[in-house]
């Protein structure tokens, strides 16, 4: 069993935009590697610097957000390629939890496998939280997974999260391999019944 994650507390970083795909989170040319180590340096690379290497003013390079672990973004975050390099790059940069309007399914699953809460709020609530962060970057966000609420300053919102991913964080089964191994010979029984390979 992995550790149980009941809540996460930390400062936030607002990344505005819908449909932020995993190619934007980590461009394919930085995936020429056999480990995930060091990918954080290239997170959002092409959104952060132009062809001459000059900063484009991305929130990841805004000193007010430096080291903030809660990423707050909009709809369909993490769409596109299934590359786990994307959440791994965010994690390596320092992100530990995500609050968005919605997530692409494979991306949400990948976050779950890494023990990173990926929680959703409505469009207006996300907008409110982003505005709050842009005004006061140092406020603390509290994600409570037990009663599924998000608190920031004097605000509290009811959040949503895929039940299975929430349960896995709460009961510490998000590092799935050990749980799957427990099925033991039941796995072989299914295999024996199959008419192929």
């Amino acid at each position, binding site marked *: 069993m992995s550790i149980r994650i009941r809540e996460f507390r930390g400062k936030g970083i607002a990344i505005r*935009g*819908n*449909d932020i*795909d995993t*190619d*934007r989170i980590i*461009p*394919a*040319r930085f*995936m*020429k*590697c*056999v*480990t*995930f180590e060091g990918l954080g340096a290239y997170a959002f690379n*092409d959104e952060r610097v132009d*062809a001459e290497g000059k900063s484009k003013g991305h929130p990841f390079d805004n000193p007010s957000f430096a080291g903030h672990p809660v990423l707050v973004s909009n*709809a*369909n975050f993490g*769409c*596109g*390629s*299934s*590359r*786990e*390099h994307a*959440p*791994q790059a965010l994690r390596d940069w320092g992100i530990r939890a995500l609050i968005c309007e*919605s997530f*692409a*399914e*494979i991306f949400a*699953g*990948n976050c779950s*496998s*890494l023990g990173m809460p990926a929680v959703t709020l409505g*469009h207006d609530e996300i907008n409110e939280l982003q505005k709050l962060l842009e005004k006061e970057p140092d406020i603390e966000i509290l994600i409570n997974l037990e009663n599924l609420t998000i608190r920031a300053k004097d605000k509290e919102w009811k959040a949503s999260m*895929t*039940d*299975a*991913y929430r*349960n*896995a964080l709460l*009961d510490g*089964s998000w590092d*799935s*391999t050990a*749980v*799957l*191994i427990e*099925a033991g010979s*039941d*796995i072989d029984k*299914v*295999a024996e*019944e*199959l*008419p*192929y*390979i």
Partner: protein
Amino acid sequence: MAGKNLFEKVWAKHKVRTLPSGQDQLFIGLHLIHEVTSPQAFGMLREKKLSVRYPGRTFATADHIIPTDDISRPLSDPLAEEMLKALEANTGEYGIQYFGPESGKQGVIHVVGPEKGLTQPGMTIACGDSHTATHGAFGAIAFGVGTSQVRDILATQTMAISKPGVRRILVNGKMPDGVTAKDLILAIIGRLGVNGGLGYAYEYAGEAIESMTMEERMTLCNMSIEGGARAGYVNPDKTTYDWLKGKPYIKDFESMVAYAEEIKSDTDAHYDDEVVFEAGELKPMVTWGINPGQVVAVDEGLPSVDSLPEDEKETALRAYEYMGFSENEKMLGKKIDVVFIGSCTNGRLTDLREAANIARGKKVADTVTALVVPGSQEVARAAEEEGLDKIFRDAGFQWRLAGCSMCLAMNADKLKGRQISASTSNRNFIGRQGSPTGRTLLLSPAMAAAAALAGEIVDIRNTGAAS
């Protein structure tokens, strides 16, 4: 009581148990791996002191980083060489069948699986690649997964997954001349949106689907993921069986067919949702923006931002800015710099034939660099036997070696600067084709070939070559 659909039947046969989290533990009958998303999974196995539970159910090839000009070893890119070596070492150590570049059997994993007959009806298939949905064309349920799940499948041959609902996409009627499976899937994504499929697997059905070849069905299922669906499939039929007959990994054809007939959707099957399309209304499609849902018929105007749903406006504004296009313009007549024909979406023999039919006896425009990248070494050989390579070369196309190439530009095949590419691949994301400012227009192989000749987007229906 309503009957069952294929997805439910196959799921039930592969379910090991319900996990404490509420997800199901699903047995994966066929696991495919490649060089980009597997080395870390093998690393995690070693860290956990685990082994590969069913090495005979995993197959590997190298596709993403393979150069398409020279594959002599060591590869000129040392990082690519390191990834290839890692795959060779990992497959060797755990006894996994590997189709390397020297074997003559290498190619894009989603082209190789079907052409070897590894992909069969009623299987559960997973691969650390979102376009695994392709294999659904054979009536398999096939999922793209992340690297942690690749690790889980290597270690247990199972994965934790929530069962999605099933939406039937019913496509009535016949496709008009010049309109392909690529145009259909782009139209589906355009109408339902890039996250319209969230929570669903898609069953594609109806007259238009039944009359499609296997290659067309693969193109269709391949891009299910671009529509936000977890998987896509077509019920197996005679077209499926005829295509698979005699393929190397089909051990017992009769029992494969018997199983396929058992698991295909009942005529009174239940679906969680249904969406209907009329094939006769479809036109050749071209994307104009930065996701595959930003797509129009070639002869129709680009949408005004005001006319779009609230949640699409922001991305549309960003797309217009990035692409340098304007509202109400048409894609018809847009100048292009590069043409890429290939990928797991459209890199099969029939795709190359369609493109070659357009290119035969013509010349690529002086302003255009055009690449044809076969989906696999087997596709390349078959195309060369038919003389397609000569047709392409004579017309000024570059005839390259098999791989993913400029679909995601992990090898040396990249756009430069703000070049615009007409591409038969599956994603038009910002920077996708290797230049952080490069632009991609997605379209069918015939439309791509026609664009290469004209130097601009043309309507294949007006070239006299549509049928």
